């Protein structure tokens, strides 16, 4: 009924008609449509991030018997918009003793790698930028790229606290990448394809969802993914009470905003991937496919926020122990069981 892919197709066909009538080569049409899709994705992510920041504050506030932002608009909905404008207006400070090139490029690396993932996130039936046949592999590869940016930020800042933060995040993300991949492999083994669309299509009914057939895989994925995006209880790279602000200690203004933006984009990404892999993606009765996708994704985000506002933080060695001594064997076990019984 309200399927959005029809809208995009209609726009594309209208443009195609226009271009053939005016005799413009196909190349320009492709370029224009790519640009349009890019704009739509960027706009969507920006709105989603602004919403998530506001939502996180509200969720936290209500868990802590308070209201959160209330003064700007209805229940403070404009608060993050105003905060974003403030951050953009701030002076762009580059401290004197930093490694300038690395310092400036670091937030861009983090930001871009956070955005690139959205090439193959299936938002709904037919709502995917490009259904790569190596979809999930591509996502895993791109998300890991974040660590390069964080390490650059930690090293380039020329600050011991930042360096400790950068090193911590490198160790953490590399460690948790392994169980994360193992948990994803279980699903891939069952589907027989790496394509995101194929993975969703194989979960048409509730009993086909991989959270039912791969419960261990789901838990391992969720835990490792939370560690991937540095959220409590695994937020040690930017543990405020220990490392001031970790790798982004020296960043302010727009550069800080880019880290912040990337963080929340990654939060959305891991939840979207979890929805796709384990919760049947866009499948669901009555409502349009993209609405189902968002309901599930925000459900997972809510759970992750719930963790954040309940748990204390683990220590860096406990974090490593947990990854290598617990999650990794569990991931292998899950993979073996899947291979044996599927």
């Amino acid at each position, binding site marked *: 009924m309200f399927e959005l892919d029809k809208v995009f197709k209609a726009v594309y066909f209208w443009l195609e008609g226009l271009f053939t009538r005016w005799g413009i080569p196909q190349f320009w049409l492709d370029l224009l449509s790519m640009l349009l899709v890019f704009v739509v994705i960027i706009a969507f992510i920006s709105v989603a991030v602004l919403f998530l920041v506001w939502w996180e504050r509200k969720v936290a506030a209500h868990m802590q018997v308070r209201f959160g932002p209330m003064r700007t608009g209805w229940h403070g909905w404009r608060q993050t918009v105003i905060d974003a404008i403030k951050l953009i207006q701030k002076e762009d400070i580059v401290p004197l003793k930093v490694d300038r090139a690395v310092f400036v490029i670091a937030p861009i690396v983090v930001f871009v790698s956070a955005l690139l993932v959205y090439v193959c996130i299936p938002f709904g039936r037919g709502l995917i930028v490009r259904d790569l046949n190596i979809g999930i592999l591509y996502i895993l590869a791109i998300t890991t790229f974040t660590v390069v940016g964080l390490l650059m930020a930690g090293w380039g800042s020329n600050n011991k*606290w930042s360096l400790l933060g950068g090193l911590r995040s490198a160790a953490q993300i590399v460690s948790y990448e392994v169980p994360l991949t193992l948990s994803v492999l279980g699903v891939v083994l069952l589907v027989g394809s790496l394509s995101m669309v194929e993975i969703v299509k194989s979960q048409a009914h509730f009993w086909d969802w991989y959270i039912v057939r791969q419960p261990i895989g789901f838990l391992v994925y969720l835990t490792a993914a939370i560690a991937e995006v540095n959220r409590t*209880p695994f937020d040690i790279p930017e543990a405020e*009470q*220990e490392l001031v602000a970790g790798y982004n200690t020296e960043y302010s203004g727009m550069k800080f905003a880019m880290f912040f933006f990337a963080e929340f984009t990654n939060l959305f990404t891991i939840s979207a991937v979890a929805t796709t892999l384990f919760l049947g993606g866009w499948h669901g009765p009555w409502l349009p496919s993209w609405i189902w996708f968002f309901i599930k994704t925000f459900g997972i985000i809510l759970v992750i926020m719930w963790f954040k*506002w309940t*748990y*204390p933080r*683990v*220590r*860096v060695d406990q974090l490593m122990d947990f990854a290598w001594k617990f999650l990794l064997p569990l991931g292998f076990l899950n993979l073996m069981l899947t291979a044996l019984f599927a």
Partner: protein
Amino acid sequence: MSDYPKNSLNLPFITTEKVGTEEFILNMGPQHPSTHGVCRLILKMDGEVIVDLVPIVGYLHRALEKIAENRTYLQFIPYTDRIDYVSAMLCNHGLCMAVEKLAEIEVPQRAEYIRVIMDELNRIASHLVWLGTFALDLGAITPFLYCFREREMILDLIEMTCGQRMTFNYMRVGGVSRDLPGEFIPKAREFVKYFKPRVDEYEAILTQNPIFLGRTKGVGILDQKTAIDYSVTGPNLRATGLKWYLRKEEPYSVYDKFEFDIPTGTKSDTWDRYMVRIQEMRQANRIVEQALESIPEGDIKAKTKAVFKPPKGEAYTRVESTRGEMGFYVVSEGDTMPYRLKLRTASFSNLAVLPEMVRGWKIADLVVIFASLDVIMPDVDR
């Protein structure tokens, strides 16, 4: 260099020099989110592991002992509020007791009861601040707001009595500055009843949480001998298993009239220090409950001369402050102002023992151990 074979390929990016790690100096504070004020810690680190630590104190030194020599006894009471601003009532109490001992003033019973009620309410409030910031240093943000919700009620009660929420300036030599207002006792009774299940709530969110246990059990062990050598007092000493409680050992005011237990630890780790303070909140609540039941009618202040001049002599008294023993040593030359006033504050000794506890632990543990000692910087620097 000899440990490594010389590379035969002679590639420019392979170094023949020994690759290794080295220790580095890390400056933590004075402006750091978890140094609880302006403490500066100089750390010698090996990666994340602490090799050595030197606390640098004095950023809040205000020469309070010298100021006391130029102020009358009454004028100095507001200064005591600022020694340990989180539990100012107990500092007030300490000074007043010392001066009363010097001038041999008998304090009316009602005033003593009011003092005990205020002390214990303030103790709960102070432990709540500690619990909140301790949880915050562990990365758990929610308990902080729960603690401040209850602290707010205590501050309302105290504000109702003396008009202040932080620096109370409530006690006077010979009693207290004003009587409890009429609505105080019913309100306080309500609070006492309300507060009991709240402690269980804090415990529910922390005590048995596996991450919390992992972060606190066995971390930062302070053995009893070291604790005594450094004259550590208060909950930190009791967590080592020593049953030393000034309110029992050397009962001042009217503490001998109430029933309460001395919570002690066994392993003397961070978890024990947490547990001792949690139990102390329950015991303080119990004392307030008993005091509210049995508070007598009568005067709230002994008669003192308009120009107060204690006789020549000296006196030393100590109170069980929230952080440990707080001592006031007053020397009088028979003047309106003390000739000399010496403060003994608990936080100074408690901070001094920190290097003994953190060697070999990680920086994340340092934050937790430091928080578990409950150090208040103006209390250290005076």
